[in-house]
């Protein structure tokens, strides 16, 4: 019930293209859904987060789409840039425990 499934495992996108990463969860007790970005050798950093009562949230080139009935959410990176090349993790947050359950990550490479 604590699992968060993330796909694809890796993704190659050309510069200027759209990167799409998908996640699905099982536990309906999760109440926030953040995305983290991690560069090699560094700790992850929060990119964007969404509450389950919102269907979409946009911050700059990054958009989260959320489908509560399907228990799925996705990250869209518009106009992908080589600097976006990193590993992206979706996560689900349980406010009762203040804990995050992470997906296994997607390694994104944006080719110049």
């Amino acid at each position, binding site marked *: 019930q604590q699992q968060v499934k*993330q796909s694809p*495992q890796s993704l190659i996108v050309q510069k200027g293209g759209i990167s799409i990463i998908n996640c699905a969860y099982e536990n309906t007790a999760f*109440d*926030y859904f*953040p995305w983290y970005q991690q560069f090699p*050798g*560094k*700790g*992850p*950093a*929060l990119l964007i*987060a969404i*509450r389950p009562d919102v269907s979409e949230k946009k911050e700059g080139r990054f958009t989260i789409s959320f489908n509560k009935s399907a228990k799925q959410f996705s990250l869209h990176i518009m106009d992908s840039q080589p600097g976006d090349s990193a590993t992206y*993790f979706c996560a689900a*947050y349980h*406010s009762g*425990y*203040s*804990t*995050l*359950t*992470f*997906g*296994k*990550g997607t390694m994104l490479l944006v080719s110049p």
Partner: protein
Amino acid sequence: SQTIHQWPATLVQPVGSPLSLECTVEGTSNPNLYWYRQAAGRGLQLLFYSVGIGQISSEVPQNLSASRPQDRQFILSSKKLLLSDSGFYLCAWSVGSGGFDEQYFGPGTRLTVT
């Protein structure tokens, strides 16, 4: 401003040796503290979290333990390392707000057990 420190940055230890990784947070009080392990292809696995001094919750049964001797200090230990303990260990902190508590991650410790 708040900062989080982890040391050492890298560590190579033989199987069966003890382990002590330290994490400290500056610039905040009574943070929630977390230890994660990141192995290739497995994402971030929550190992321990603490909401206060001496309060430790374990997520995964294993040969690791955690302690919080001071408000802003979190220590990950093992008496005898296994090969499977190799990985990238990340400490994180957050401050409870009643809503989504953003977790801020440290720079990590790369542990190789040989």
